[in-house]
C-alpha cells in the first residue's frame, strides 16, 4: 500500500496493525453511531420526513416529485453541460492550436485568453453572461462554463502536444507533411489520446460547476431540490438532499471511474485522473509529468 514509508511488516507488526485497525474502526463506527442517534433524536429518520419521496403531501404524486428532480432538475443540469462541453472543447482546441503558431506575437492573444479565463471564478463569468451581456440564466450558465473550460481544455491539449516526443513532429515534416497536416494526422491524435483521461476528468469539473447555476437562478438539480423543499416543507430537506447529493455523486463518480479506466487503458500513470474537483488551474509548463499527474 504505502510501501514508501514502511518495510513489509512482519507477523508482530501485522498483528499490531490489525489491532490498531480494529480499534480505529470501532472509534469511527462509534462516532457514526452517535451522529446517527443524534439525528434520530431530532426526528430526521421518522417516516414523515421521508414520505415526500414515495407519498408526498399536498395532493402531489411521488412521480411528480421525482420528475421535477430527475427529469427537470437533472435534465437542466445535463443540458447545460451537454451544450457547454462540446463548445468548450472546440474553442479549447482552437486556442491550443493557436498557441502552436510559430510567430510569437501571434500567439499572444491565445495565451492571454487562456491565462485570464482560467484565473477567474466560473460564477463571475456566469454573472458576466447574465448581468452584463443580458443573457437568460441558461445562456449565462453555458457562457460561464464554456469560457472557463475552453481555457482549461486548451491547457490540457497544449500540455499533450508539448509532451509528445520531438521526433514525431520532425518525422512528420521529414516525410513532407505540412504543419497543418502533421498536426492533424500525427500530433493531435496522439495528444488527444494521451490527454483523454484529463479531458474526461475535466468534464466532471464542468458538471460540478453547472451547479453554480443555482446561484444565478437557473432551475437545475439543486434548485429543483430547493423548490421541492420549500413547497413541501423544510422537514423534507434531508430526504431531498440525500437524493440530490446521491445523484451528483452517482454521475460524477461514474465519470471519474471512466476517466480512471481510460487512463489505465491508455497506459498513463495510475492516479493520473485529472481533477474531478473543479479546482483546476493547470500550471503552464509543458512537461510529461504535468500532463499526466492529477491536478489539484
Amino acid at each position, binding site marked *: 500500500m504505502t510501501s514508501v*514509508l514502511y518495510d513489509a511488516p512482519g507477523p508482530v507488526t501485522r498483528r499490531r496493525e490489525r489491532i*490498531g485497525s480494529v480499534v480505529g474502526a470501532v472509534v469511527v463506527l462509534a462516532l457514526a453511531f452517535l451522529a446517527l442517534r443524534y439525528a434520530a433524536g431530532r426526528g430526521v429518520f421518522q417516516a414523515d420526513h421521508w414520505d415526500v419521496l414515495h407519498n408526498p403531501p399536498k395532493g402531489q404524486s411521488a412521480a411528480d416529485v421525482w420528475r421535477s428532480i430527475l427529469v427537470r432538475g437533472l435534465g437542466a443540469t445535463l443540458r447545460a453541460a451537454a451544450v457547454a462541453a462540446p463548445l468548450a472543447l472546440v474553442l479549447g482546441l482552437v486556442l491550443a492550436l493557436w498557441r502552436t503558431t510559430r510567430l510569437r506575437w501571434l500567439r499572444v492573444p491565445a495565451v492571454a485568453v487562456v491565462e485570464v479565463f482560467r484565473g477567474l471564478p466560473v460564477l*463571475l463569468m456566469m454573472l458576466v453572461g447574465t448581468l452584463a451581456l443580458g443573457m437568460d440564466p441558461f445562456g449565462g450558465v453555458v457562457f460561464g462554463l464554456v469560457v472557463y473550460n475552453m481555457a482549461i481544455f486548451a491547457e490540457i491539449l497544449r500540455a499533450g502536444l508539448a509532451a509528445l516526443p520531438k521526433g514525431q513532429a520532425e518525422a512528420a515534416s521529414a516525410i513532407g507533411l505540412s504543419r497543418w497536416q502533421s498536426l492533424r494526422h500525427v500530433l493531435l491524435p496522439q495528444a488527444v489520446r494521451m490527454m483523454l483521461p484529463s479531458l474526461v476528468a475535466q468534464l466532471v469539473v464542468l458538471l*460540478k460547476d453547472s*451547479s*453554480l447555476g443555482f446561484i444565478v437562478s437557473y432551475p437545475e438539480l439543486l434548485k429543483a431540490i*430547493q423548490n421541492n423543499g420549500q413547497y413541501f416543507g423544510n422537514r423534507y430537506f434531508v430526504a431531498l438532499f440525500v437524493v440530490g447529493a446521491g445523484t451528483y455523486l452517482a454521475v460524477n463518480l461514474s465519470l471519474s471511474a471512466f476517466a480512471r479506466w481510460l487512463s489505465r487503458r491508455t497506459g498513463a500513470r495510475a492516479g493520473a485522473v485529472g481533477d474531478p*474537483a473543479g479546482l*483546476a488551474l493547470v*500550471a503552464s509548463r509543458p512537461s510529461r509529468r504535468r500532463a499526466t499527474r492529477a491536478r489539484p
Partner: protein
Amino acid sequence: MDLIVDNASTYLDGFAVTARLTAYSAVAALAVGLVMAALRIAPLRSLRVVAAAYVEVLRNTPLTLVFFFMVLVAPQFGILPPLGFWTAVACLALYTSAFVAEAVRSGINGVGVGQAEAARSIGLTFGQVLREVVLPQAVRSTVPPLINVLIALTKNTSVAAGFAVVELVGTGRRLSTANAGDPWVLVGVAVCYLVITIPMGLLATSLERRVAFAR
C-alpha cells in the same frame, strides 16, 4: 471605467472579504487536509478507508452542494450555522481539505520506493527516513500542486456570494445591478481576482521549475 474609480472603496471592501475568506479557509483546509493525508498513508486499514471515502466524496461533490447542506439541510439536524462569513469558511475549508489531502498524499507516494529502502538499509530510523529522505523530496513535489489548490480556493470563495456573503463577486453583482449591467463593473471584479490568481500561478510554475529534479 469611471465606475471602478468611483467605487474603489466598495471594491476594496469586497477584496478584503475575499482575502479573509481565502486566508481562514486555507489555514483550516491545510490543517484538516494534512490530517486526512496522514490517515490515508497510515498503516491502519480502517482509517485509510475512512480518509479515502472522505476525500473521494468531497472531490466529487460540487462546492455549491456543500454550501446548500450547511445553509438549508443542517438546520434540520438542529444545527443552525449563522448565515455568512464563518459558515462560508467552514464550507470552503471542508471542500478544499479533500484536495489538500490528495496533493499531499500523491506527493509522498511520488517519492521513489527505492529512496526509503536505501535510507532504511543504511540504518536510518523511521523518523530519520521521514525527516531526512522522504519529506524533503515530498515537499518539493507537493508545494506547487498545493499552490494550485490555493488558487482554486481563491476562485471558489466566489460561491459564498450565492449564500449571503458580500465578497468580490457579491460586490460586483450589487454594483452591476445598481448600474444597469455596465460591463466595466465586472471587469473590475475580474481584475481583482487576476491580481491574486495570476501571480500565484506564476509562483507555482516557477517553483515547480526550480524544484524539478530527475527521478
